[in-house]
């Protein structure tokens, strides 16, 4: 098989990925690859193993088998499986979560600033303790960056409210803003539209497109709202029972018999 990572355009290459939980194969010999600058959709019915794929990429799960290679910020090709979870971010991969993992008690601004955790340059615990000039400068810089991200998503005016008290739509945006703080090469969105109403979903589609443009990044998303997926994704992979059903454009996927079967239970 040709090594896709040889192509400059390939950002993430997943090859023969498998993981099982107690004998149940959640992901089964799955391969696909994502190109730089793409918006890539991963779809499949409930329980198909989509989130598991995300968890494997971000090293929340260590896959049983398979390769996960990524072209990181420096342009080096790294094998993600060799990294501890918390070091995936510095390679340039950032993610959101299905159930919005925000810190409820913190302000929205603080939540977004968590995304800049690794970007703080050279401020030490001592700088923090004594509130040195370096720390204040760095903090100011990051706050400006955070506010840019919040402004970009149109929620800057909420920034001082506790995140937990905000409507779900806002919380989703906060999580999105947080991903922007680390200057990512690949943003992984786990059901970004879940819980949003129609208007918010339309907004979200627009935002994802703008993020790709403004932040010059690549986006991989899992989503159940097919309207959204079909509208914004360049390519889509459909999976079921952890296996790949089809890869293609929106139209190709929608027309695919196996995909319809999986979703609607249409008899073959």
């Amino acid at each position, binding site marked *: 098989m040709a090594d896709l990572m040889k192509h400059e355009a390939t950002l993430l290459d997943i090859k023969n990925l498998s993981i099982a939980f107690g004998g149940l194969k959640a992901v089964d010999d799955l391969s696909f690859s994502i190109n730089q600058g793409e918006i890539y959709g991963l779809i499949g019915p409930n329980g198909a193993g989509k989130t598991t794929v995300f968890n494997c990429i971000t090293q929340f799960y260590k896959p049983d088998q398979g390769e996960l290679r990524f072209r990181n910020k420096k342009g080096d090709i790294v094998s993600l499986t060799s990294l501890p979870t*918390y070091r995936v971010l510095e390679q340039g991969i*950032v993610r959101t979560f299905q159930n919005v993992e925000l810190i409820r008690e913190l302000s929205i601004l*603080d939540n977004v600033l968590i995304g800049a955790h690794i970007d703080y340059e050279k401020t030490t615990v001592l700088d923090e303790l004594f509130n040195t000039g370096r720390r204040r400068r760095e903090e100011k810089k990051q706050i400006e960056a955070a506010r840019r991200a919040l402004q970009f998503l149109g929620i800057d005016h909420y920034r001082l409210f506790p995140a937990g008290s905000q409507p779900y739509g806002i919380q989703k945006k906060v999580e999105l803003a947080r991903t922007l703080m680390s200057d990512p090469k690949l943003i992984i969105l786990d059901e970004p539209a879940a819980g949003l109403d129609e208007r918010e979903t339309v907004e979200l589609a627009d935002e994802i497109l703008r993020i790709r443009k403004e932040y010059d990044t690549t986006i991989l998303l899992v989503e159940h709202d097919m309207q959204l997926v079909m509208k914004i994704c360049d390519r889509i992979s459909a999976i079921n029972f952890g296996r790949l059903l089809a890869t293609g454009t929106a139209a190709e996927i929608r027309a695919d018999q196996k995909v319809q079967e999986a979703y609607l239970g249409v008899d073959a």
Partner: protein
Amino acid sequence: MDRQLNTFQRIYKNPYLQFLIVGVLFALLPTLRAAGMVKAGTVTVIGTTLIYTIAALGLNILLGYSGLISLGTAGFMGLAAYCSAYFTEQLALPFWQSLILALLIPTVLGVIVGLLSMRFVGIYLGIATLAVGEILSEIFRQWDAFTRGTSGARAKYPKIFGMQLDQTGMYYLIVIITIIVFILVYQLLKGRLGRALNAMRGSEAAAMAMGISVYKYRLIAFGAATLLASLAGVLYVHYIRISYPTIWGLPLSLDFLAIIVIGGLRSIYGTLVGSFVIFAMSELVLKQIPYMENYSLVLKGVLIIIFILFYPYGLAHVVSDLRMRLGRRKTKVHPLAAKEEDIDG
């Protein structure tokens, strides 16, 4: 959102100034005492309460910010107290040298215990640290050469900057250190580190995804908590002038827990208020009620239950709780409501 603040608001909203004002208020106490307006014992009760506040603040960093429970706080506080007594009395080291050692030794041990938190969660961590506290407690009782066993280890009022402190001087030192601790803790936690700890508690998954090493920050949290407990222990032994093994048992550790839950997680002032409820209320209020002397424990228990049932987010949030109750009820979820699985123990 950017409201214009007037000058007055600008001043009273400045946290540093607030801390200073609190410090000055506490520092006034000996003067009030001299004027006969408060009793002599009150100064000591409040001095001790401030010492306990420092230790409780450490636990608040651990539990409030990081979501990690410890039932061994008293053990570490005691260890520092014994170290300081041993170094200044037995080895006759100068106070400053002894202080550094007495802070360092328990903190290193605390960080090692922090390793437990890599393996234990919730109640398991709670009981494991309880066992650590029991081990320390047993050492205090048994290792006579170091602790003078059940005779208790004595210490003197310290000499700092060539100045021999007396009891009142020691009280001023406690107030000054308390305020410095407030300011440093405030600074430490309002920024990157505080956010990292918060993230770790609120969502370990989010923390890891944002590049936060849970391993490192758990150890930092344990280190900070033990450091503050140690500081409190050193102050205690040089204020009360004795360290006695029975003090550093499970009941005190549980009291620290009660302080921060009653006062409010992640709140410096809440910790202070909680500390007063647990350590000073009985002395300054309950025991003053006629015929209630024998029931002060009962009243304390009743108040603990009432506070927690009615102010589940701590007394520090009384104001925001009231605001919630008086309309403006947008959501049923309190903004500060922690999710069930965040902290358990």
